[in-house]
C-alpha cells in the first residue's frame, strides 16, 4: 500500500489471496487523534500494521480518517458474517480510548463505539478464532466485556484507569515487521510474539525515559494461534515430498520432547534434542538444495 495523506484517506479494502487456509480477516482502524501529532501517528501505525499483515491476511480492511466511524466499523465486521468458522477475524483499533467507570469507548469521528457494541458486532460472526487488539488508552476496561470463548483480547493498558495516550500502537506496528519479534524463528509473527515484543518495548520505553509507566499491556485468551505477519529470511516452505514430511515429523517430535522436558534427565534431554536437531538440519539442507 502507498501512504496517502490523512485528508485524502478513504476506506480501503484490500482483497488479498490467502497464503494459508486459515488466514485471518483483518479490520484495522485508526481513531481520532485530537491533535495533529496523534492523528498522523495513528494513521501511520494503522497503515504499517496493514502493510505488515497483508501477505498473511485473507483480507485487510483499513479504516482511517473520516471513514473510521462507528457505522463503518460495524459494517466492516458484518462483511464476515458469511466467512467460514475456521477463518480467524482480527480487529485492531489504534487511537485514544476512554473509560467513564462503566463503558470503554473508542474515539472515532461521530459516535464512539463502546466495548459492548464491539462485542455485539463480533458475536454473530461464525469465526471461532477472534482476536481484538486495542492499542488505545483505557483499553484494559474492555477486556472483560470482549473476552469470550474463541475470542482473545490484547489491550494496551491493564485497566480503564490508565487513561494517558499510549505508545503501544507504535511498537505493535513495529513488532509485525521486526525479525527480533520472531521468537521461534519460523518466519511468522503470531499475536503472542507480537504482544511479548510490545510488552517489553513499552516497559523499556518508560524506563529509558525515566517516567512512571502509564500503560501496562495485557492479554487474555489463547493469542498464540493468530498468525499475523510473515518476515523475510526464515520460515518453512510448504515443499511437498518425503524430506518435508520427515521435517514435519521431526518438528512434532521436538515439540513433544520440549513438552516432556521435566521428565528427562537434563543431559539426556539435550542429547536427544541435539540428535533430532541434527537430523532436522540435514533435512533442511536437503530441502534447500532442491
Amino acid at each position: 500500500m502507498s501512504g496517502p495523506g490523512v485528508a485524502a484517506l478513504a476506506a480501503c479494502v484490500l482483497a488479498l489471496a490467502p497464503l494459508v487456509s486459515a488466514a485471518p480477516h483483518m479490520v484495522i482502524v485508526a481513531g481520532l487523534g485530537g491533535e495533529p501529532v496523534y492523528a498522523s501517528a495513528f494513521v501511520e501505525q494503522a497503515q504499517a500494521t496493514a502493510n505488515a499483515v497483508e501477505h498473511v491476511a485473507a483480507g485487510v480492511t483499513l479504516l482511517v480518517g473520516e471513514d473510521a466511524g462507528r457505522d463503518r466499523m460495524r459494517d466492516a465486521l458484518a462483511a464476515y458474517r458469511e466467512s467460514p468458522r475456521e477463518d480467524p477475524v482480527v480487529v485492531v483499533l489504534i487511537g485514544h480510548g476512554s473509560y467513564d467507570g462503566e463503558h470503554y469507548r473508542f474515539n472515532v469521528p461521530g459516535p464512539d463505539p463502546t466495548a459492548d457494541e464491539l462485542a455485539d458486532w463480533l458475536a454473530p460472526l461464525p469465526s471461532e478464532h477472534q482476536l481484538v487488539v486495542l492499542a488505545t488508552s483505557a483499553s484494559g476496561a474492555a477486556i472483560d466485556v470482549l473476552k469470550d470463548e474463541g475470542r482473545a483480547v490484547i489491550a494496551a493498558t491493564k485497566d480503564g484507569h490508565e487513561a494517558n495516550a499510549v505508545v503501544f500502537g507504535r511498537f505493535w506496528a513495529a513488532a509485525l515487521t521486526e525479525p527480533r519479534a520472531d521468537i521461534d524463528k519460523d518466519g511468522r509473527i503470531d499475536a503472542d510474539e507480537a504482544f511479548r515484543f510490545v510488552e517489553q518495548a513499552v516497559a523499556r520505553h518508560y524506563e529509558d525515559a525515566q517516567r512512571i509507566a502509564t500503560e501496562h499491556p495485557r492479554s487474555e485468551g489463547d493469542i498464540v494461534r493468530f498468525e499475523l505477519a510473515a518476515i523475510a529470511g526464515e520460515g518453512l516452505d510448504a515443499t511437498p515430498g518425503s524430506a518435508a514430511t520427515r521435517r514435519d515429523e521431526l518438528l512434532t517430535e521436538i515439540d513433544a520432547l520440549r513438552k516432556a522436558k521435566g521428565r528427562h534427565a537434563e543431559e539426556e534431554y539435550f542429547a536427544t534434542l541435539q540428535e533430532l536437531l541434527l537430523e532436522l538440519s540435514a533435512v533442511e539442507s536437503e530441502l534447500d538444495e532442491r
Partner: protein
Amino acid sequence: MPGRSRLALLLASLATAAWGQSLEQCRAFELTAGDDALSCYRQLLVAGESAVRAEAAWALDDFPAANAAFRAAVQANPERADLRARWGQLYLEAQSAAEALNLFREALQLDPNDIDAKLGMARVALGGFDAKAEELANEVLAAAPGRHEARLILARLALEADDPDRAQRELEGPLASADPRIRLQAFALRAAMDHLADQVPSPWEDRARALHPGYGALHETIAHFYIITRRYREAIAQLERAVEADPRLWSAHATLGMNLLRVNRFADGYGVLARAHDAFPYNREVVNALRLLDDVMAWPENVGDGLILRIDPAESGALAGYVRDLTADALDAFAERYDYRPEPPVVVELYRRHEDFAVRTSGLPGIGILGATFGHVVVMDGPSARGIDEGFDWASALWHEIAHVVTLGATDNRVARWFSEGISVLEEWQTGPSRFQVDGAPAGRHAVPPDVIDAFRDGMLLPVAGLDEGFIRPRYAGQVGVSYTQAGLVCEYVAETHGLDGLVRLLAAFADGRHTASAIETALAVSPEALDRAFTTYLEERFANIDTVAFRVAVAEARDAVESRDWQTAFDAAERAVASYRHYVGGLSPYTVLAESAERLGRRDRAVEALTTYWQAGGRLTEPLTRLAEWREAAGNLDEALQVRRALALVAPLSGGHRVVLGDRLLAAGAAAEARREYVAYQALEPHDRADAHYRLARALFALDELEAARREVLLALEIAPTYSDALRLLTDVTRRSRAGSSER
C-alpha cells in the same frame, strides 16, 4: 549531640515546684546510678505537667509518649518557645532533622532570642556538615557568652576541620564548667583530639570515666572522629566500648551497625541494627538500613579473583563483567603508578536506586554524592540509578572509587580528603575509561568545567592546606564540585612538576600520619604557601587561552540557532565556542552542536572530526557516540568505530542494543572473549529474542573453542526456535568439531 547529655539542656522554666526538683534529682542519678535514674523518671510519668511527662518518657526511650506529651504541652502553651525547642531536640535525637529544624524555627518565630532553639539549629547544621553551624554557634555566644554548649559546637567544628589548636582554645571554657555534663563533653572532645593525634590512651578518657563511669558518649564522640577520617576499624572498637559502657545509648548502637556494614561485616552489622531497632524503633537510619539489608543480603555474592561484587540480581549479569574488568584494570594501573596493591578482597556494591545507595552509605536518603569508598569497600550508584545522559559516567566513577581504595589502603586511611579525591580525579583524567587522549593535545589534560576557571579567576579556590573544608563544609553553591576539580589539578600539578613520585611521596607522608602542611613539606620540600603560589602560576598558564565569557555566549548562540534550525549560525557559533575553550566536553559542550550543524550543512568530515575530539576528550553522551560509530563504520573505519562502540557500551551497559552490536563487531574483529562478555550481558538483559541471544553467545563460545558451552547455548536457542537455520548450521559445526576432537583423542 550524644543522647545521654540531653538533660544538660533541661529548661529552666520546667524547674519549678516539686516536679522540677524531681527532674533535677533524676538527672543527678544519671551520673552515678543509672537504675535509680530510670526509677526516678518512671515516677514522673504520672506528673501533671505534660512537659515533665515528655521529659520523663524521653529519658525512658518512649519516643511516641514523649512526642505526644510535647504536643499536648505545646497545645496547652502555644506561646512557649522553649517547649518547641525541647521538642525539636527530641526529633533531632531520632535522626529526624527536618522535623527538628521546623520546631526550632517555630520556637525562634515565637522568641527570636531563644538560645536553646538556636543551639538546636546549630546542632542540625553540625550534623549536616553545614557551614552555618559556626555562624549559629557564634550568634549564641554573642547573646549568651556563658552557654558552653556553643563552645562545644565550635570545638567540634574545629576538630572536624583538622584544627586541634583552635579546638583546644574553644574547649577551655567548657573544661572549667561547673556543669559536669558540659565537662564530660569537653573531656570527650579532648580525648578525640588525642586519638586523632595517635596519642592513646588519652588521659581525658580516665577523667571522663571518673566523673561518669557509664558515659558511653565518650567513645561515641571519639568514634565520630575516626569515622570522618575513614578509620572504621578504630571507630568500631570505640563504638563497641560505647555500648558496653551505656547499653541504652541507641545512637551508638546504630552507628556501630552502620560502620560494621562499611567494613563488609554484613551479618554483624545486621545483628547490631536489628537489636538496636528492637529496643529503640524510632531511629530512621536504622529502619531504612534494615529494610535495605533485607534485600541486599538476599543478593547472591559474585566472588572471585580477589573481588566481591554485590549487585542487584536483575542487573548483575549485565554489569558483572564490566565491573570485574574495570576493577582489575584499575588495580593494575594504580599498582604500577603508586606502587601499592590493596589486600584482597575488594568489595564493589552497585545500587539501582540512588536512595538505596544513600541509605547504604549514610542511613538516610538524600545525600548528593554518587559513590563512596570505605577502605576496601566501594559503594556507588549503578548506571540505572543515574544514566550517562544525565551526566553520570558510572565506569569513570568506579575508576575514581577504586583509586580511593588505593589511597586509603596505602595510608591506612590517614590520607587527607583532598588528596584522596585529587588522586581519584587525576586518575579519571589520565588513566580511566573516559580519560583525556585527544590527538595533538597533552595526554590527560582534561578540560575542566568553566565554573572552576571562573572560581580560580575570582580567587575562590582554597589554599591547599585548607582544601578539605571545601568538601566538608562548603561555603558557596558548587564549592564541592570546584574542590574536587581543584584537588585533581593540584595532583596534576604535582605530577607534572615532581613526577608521579611526588604523589607517591605524599601518600607515604600521609601514611606516616602527617597532616597536609607537613606532608607537603616532607614530600615536596616546599611550604604549602609556596605550593599555592606555584599552583596559581600553573593554573594561570593552563587556563591562559580560555575565554569562558566568550565560550558561554557562543554556546548559547549555537544552541539558540539549533532551536531555530539555522545550521550555518549554529555551526559558526559552535566553532567560536570551541576556539574559546578547546576540548571541553561537559554540560555545555559545543562539539555535539558543531557535529550536528556540520552534518546538516553537508560537512560530514567536520562532523566526524568534532565528534572524534568529543570522544577523545572524554565526552560520553550516547547519541553523539552512536552517530560517530555509525559514521566511522559507514566510512569503513571499523577499528576506530569499534573503539567508540566499546566506550558506548561501557557507559550504557544496560542497553541491550549497544551490547549486542558491540558483541557482533568484536566477534567480527576476532575478539571472541570480549564478544562473549557482551553476549552474556545481552542475554542477562532478557531480550525479547532469546533464541537469538543464545545463538550469538554460542557463536562466541564456538570461536573460543569452548565447545560444550557452545553446544549448550545453541541447543537452548534451538529449543526455542527449532527451525532457526543459522543456529542449526552452528549446531552442526559444533557437533562436527566436538566429534573430531573426540576421535583425535
